[in-house]
């Protein structure tokens, strides 16, 4: 009896060690800490992480895959975020200016109340598509660290340029912003 109990105990301990080793290997091999932003920052080519989310500006859902062939400015925001209020008019101007060239500004409202977000859209007169991510499911995959944060996606669905952490501010990061828009559109910056 003692021998069999010891053998069962050893088997359980070995299984536990094997499970922990498996988790370690998985973490090292597959877990991309920092998401797409980390790969973009290190200069690697990376596809925009996919998502399908509920729309706030109208009924239905929107998948980023539906925007393939368009240049996309992806803006992560929330109504409780003060700098998001500052940049909203700039993003709206960009959308109006480049819409005819096939550019879409896509707002992703994260960790927010739907009603607050809708009031924000109305207050700033946003006409570009906005989707709702209350759970923050996109944050890890994109590597968003704080709000707001803006990425540029070209017509092939790849991230281009530099991401802008903080408000898109025409005075502070004009060059980075304009280069990102131009790269997304496929123009030489």
């Amino acid at each position, binding site marked *: 009896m003692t021998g069999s109990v010891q053998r069962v105990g050893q088997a359980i301990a070995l299984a536990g060690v094997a499970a922990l080793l498996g988790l370690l290997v998985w973490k090292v091999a597959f877990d991309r800490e920092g998401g797409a932003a980390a790969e973009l920052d290190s200069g690697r080519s990376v596809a925009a992480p996919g998502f399908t989310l509920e729309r706030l500006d109208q009924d239905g859902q929107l998948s980023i895959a539906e925007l393939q062939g368009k240049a996309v400015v992806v803006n992560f925001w929330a109504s409780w975020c003060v700098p998001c209020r500052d940049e909203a008019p700039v993003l709206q101007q960009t959308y109006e200016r480049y819409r005819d060239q096939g550019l879409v500004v896509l707002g992703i409202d994260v960790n927010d109340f*739907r009603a607050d977000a809708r009031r924000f859209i109305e207050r700033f007169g946003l006409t570009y598509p906005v989707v709702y991510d209350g759970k923050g499911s996109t944050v890890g995959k994109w590597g968003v660290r704080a709000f707001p944060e803006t990425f540029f996606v070209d017509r092939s669905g790849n991230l281009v340029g530099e991401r802008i952490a903080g408000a898109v501010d025409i005075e502070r990061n004009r060059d980075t912003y304009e280069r990102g828009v131009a790269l997304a559109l496929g123009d030489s910056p």
Partner: protein
Amino acid sequence: MIRLAALLAVAAFAGGVAGAGAAPSPADLEAELVCPTCKTTLDQSDAPVARRMKQILRERLAAGATAEEIKAELVAQFGPGVLAEPPKSGFDLLAWLVPLGLLGAGAFGVGALAWGWSRRGEPDAPAARIDPTLERRIDDELDRFDG
């Protein structure tokens, strides 16, 4: 010790179920809800979204909403991760049952090991008989020693 731990776990489980639907204070609810950006409970957080959640929570309580209604509304906005404790139903019930199961399995394992170790001290078989010639010789030697 194990019985006490099991009793405490069952009491906590039952207390949570019994407390559902009772009129809570804002402070009670803030300790049961998590800020989605900073992942701490609302009573520990001063993040902008946490402040907004506290404001909504007070408004809903003032309007007569129950704790369960408020929690359900927040889960609909932010997902089940907004609850500090997993729900005691459906798949999330596993989060409560698995630790209890592991506790029971651990208690069984410890008991089995202790039983095995206690058995080690017991003789497995009667002592072998001594050779009669040797026994007689020992008796003779003892008699001579005593005599």
